[in-house]
C-alpha cells in the first residue's frame, strides 16, 4: 500500500480569545499554540496502522509554514516514511477547493493506493478539502470514516452518520478517505522514532515546483471572496454566578436545590 496522509497545522483556540486583525480578513494568531489538526492526527495513526498491517509506505503531505515541520517530523516519528511540505503565499487557502487543487498537484504523477485526510479542520470546519481532493484526483472517496478495512483491490469504509448510525461502503482502490476522530487511539511518538524522523526526507516545494500555475489556485482563481471576519455577538441569557470558586459552587448548589432541579 502506498498511502498519502494530508495534515494541517492549526491553532488551538479552544481556550483562547480570538481577535480579528485590522485588515478585517485575518485573525491575530501570534498568541496561539499550533499543532496537528485533531482529525488529521487520527488519519496519521490510521495510515501507520495500515502500513504496519499491509506494508508499503506513507507520505505526509501538508501545506503550511516552516514552523509546521515540527508537526510533520512528529508524524514521521510515528512511522510515516517521508514528507512533502508545500509553502506558497499565493494559494487562496481560505477556499478548500483551491487547497484541494494544490494537494492533488502534489500527489498526481505518483503512484498511490490510498489518500487519507482528517474529515474536518478545527479552524475552518468546512469538511470539504478531502472530498474535493478525490474529485481532483478522479478516484472514489468516502467521508467521515470510523473504520477502514483493506480488501483485495478495494477498501471497506464505515462512515459515521448522524445519531451514531454507520454506513458501510466499498470503494475500489485507489481511493480517498476522510477520517473522523475516534477511529483509533493515536500513539505517542517513540523516542527512537523521533531521532529517526530527523533523517527522513522532507521535501519543501512551491507552486512552481509542482508545475501548478498560481493563477489556478490564487484569490483570482477562487470563485469566492472572503469579505470580512468579525466576532459574533454572543447573546447569552445565562445568569453568571460570580465570586470566589467556593462561593460560586455554594450559590449554584443552592440554586439547584431551591429550584427543585436536583
Amino acid at each position: 500500500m502506498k498511502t498519502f496522509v494530508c495534515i494541517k497545522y492549526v491553532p488551538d483556540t479552544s481556550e483562547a480569545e480570538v481577535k480579528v486583525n485590522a485588515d478585517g480578513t485575518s485573525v491575530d494568531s501570534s498568541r496561539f499554540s499550533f499543532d496537528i489538526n485533531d482529525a488529521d492526527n487520527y488519519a496519521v495513526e490510521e495510515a501507520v496502522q495500515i502500513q504496519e498491517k499491509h506494508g508499503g509506505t506513507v507520505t505526509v503531505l501538508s501545506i503550511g509554514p516552516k514552523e509546521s515541520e515540527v508537526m510533520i517530523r512528529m508524524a514521521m516519528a510515528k512511522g510515516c516514511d517521508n514528507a512533502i511540505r508545500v509553502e506558497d503565499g499565493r494559494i487562496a487557502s481560505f477556499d478548500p477547493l483551491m487547497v484541494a487543487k494544490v494537494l492533488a498537484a502534489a500527489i498526481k504523477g505518483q503512484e498511490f493506493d490510498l489518500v487519507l485526510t482528517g474529515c474536518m479542520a478545527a479552524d475552518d470546519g468546512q469538511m470539504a478539502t478531502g472530498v474535493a481532493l478525490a474529485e481532483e484526483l478522479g478516484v472514489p472517496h468516502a467521508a467521515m470514516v470510523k473504520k477502514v478495512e483493506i480488501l483485495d483491490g478495494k477498501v471497506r469504509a464505515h462512515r459515521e452518520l448522524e445519531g451514531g448510525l454507520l454506513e458501510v461502503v466499498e470503494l475500489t482502490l485507489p481511493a480517498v478517505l476522510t477520517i473522523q476522530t475516534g477511529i483509533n487511539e493515536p500513539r505517542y511518538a517513540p523516542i527512537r522514532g523521533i531521532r529517526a524522523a530527523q533523517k527522513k526526507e522532507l521535501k519543501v516545494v512551491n507552486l512552481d515546483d509542482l508545475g501548478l500555475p498560481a493563477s489556478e489556485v490564487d484569490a483570482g482563481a477562487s470563485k469566492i471572496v472572503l469579505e470580512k471576519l468579525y466576532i459574533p455577538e454572543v447573546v447569552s441569557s445565562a445568569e453568571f454566578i460570580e465570586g470566589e470558586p467556593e462561593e460560586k459552587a455554594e450559590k449554584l448548589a443552592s440554586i439547584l436545590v431551591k429550584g427543585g432541579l436536583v
Partner: protein
Amino acid sequence: MGNVLVLAEHRQGDLRDITFEMLAIAPALAKDLGGEVNVLLLGSGVEAMAEKIAGYGVKVLVVDDPLFEHFNADKYQKALSSLIDAYKPSLVMIGQTAQGVDFAPALAVEKNLPYVADVIGLAVEGGTLKATRQLYSGKVNAQIAFKPADTYLVTVRESAFEAPEPSAAGSVEKIESPLKEDLDYRMFVEYIEAEVGDVDITQSEILVGIGRGLKEDKNMPVIEELAGVIKADLCGSRAAVDAGWLPHDRQVGTSGKSVKPKLYIALGISGAFQHVAGIKGAKTIVAVNKDPEAPIFAVADYAIVDDMFKIVPKLAEKLKELKG
C-alpha cells in the same frame, strides 16, 4: 432561471429535518434571484415523502428509481450534475450533513461551481449572493461573497434555521432518472445501528456532561462523585468519547444522541454546535467552563466561568449537605 434547487435528505424511510430547515430561507432567496423553489427528491418508493414536502408550497421534482434506494455519494453527485445542466438553477442548497459533505465538494469541483460550506446565513445583497459561516468553533464569523456565476452551491448547517410550518399545497413532478446503471466503484453494503449501552441517556432526568476540560481519565472520580450525589447519568461531548473516557452510546450531539433532561450540567464542554444541537431539549442548562468565550454559555441558564476542578468537588459537597 433564478430557481433555487433544494436537495431533500432522507434516510431509512424518513425525511431529515435539514430538508425543511432549508425551506426556511429558500423562498426569500428564490424571490431575490428571480425564480421559485424546487425541491429535488432522489429515492425509491418515495411518493409519500414527495407529498409531504409539497405541503410546504414548493414544486417537488422526484426521481423514483431503485438505484436510489440507499444514499450513495457518487450517485447523488451524478444526479445533481446532470440535473444542474437540465434545470440550470441559480442556487443549489444541500445539507451540511453526513450525506451532504460526502459529495457536495466533489460536485463543486466537477461543475466548477462557487461553493461555500456549512453556511449559517445566506442572502442576496445588491445583486451579490453572500454567505455567513463560522470559523474557530464559532468564535469568529466570516462573510463570504460569491463571484458572479450561473449556479452557486452551498451546504447549510443543521439546526441553523427553524423549519417553517407546512403552508400552501405545492406540486409533485416525476422526472426521469438521470442514472442509467449502477456504479461499480462505490457500493453501499449495509447500515450498522448504533450500539446500545447500559443506560439510555435520552431518557435521563439529570445528566452531567463532560468535555475536553476533563483533561485526563484519572479526573473521572470527581465527576462521578457529583453525579452520584444528584443521581445523574454521565454523558459527554465527542472529545470525551474520542478520548475513551465514555463509551460511544454516551455521546451527545449530532453524531451521538439528542437528550432532553430537566437538568444538564456541562462541565468543561466548549459547546461546539454539534454538541449544542443535542441538548436543545434540556430544560435547564448549567455550564462550567474556564473560557469566558466558550459558546456553551450562549445556551446556558446558569453559568460559572472557572476551572471545573475548583467548582465540582465543592458543588458535590454542598449539594450532599443541602439534600441531607
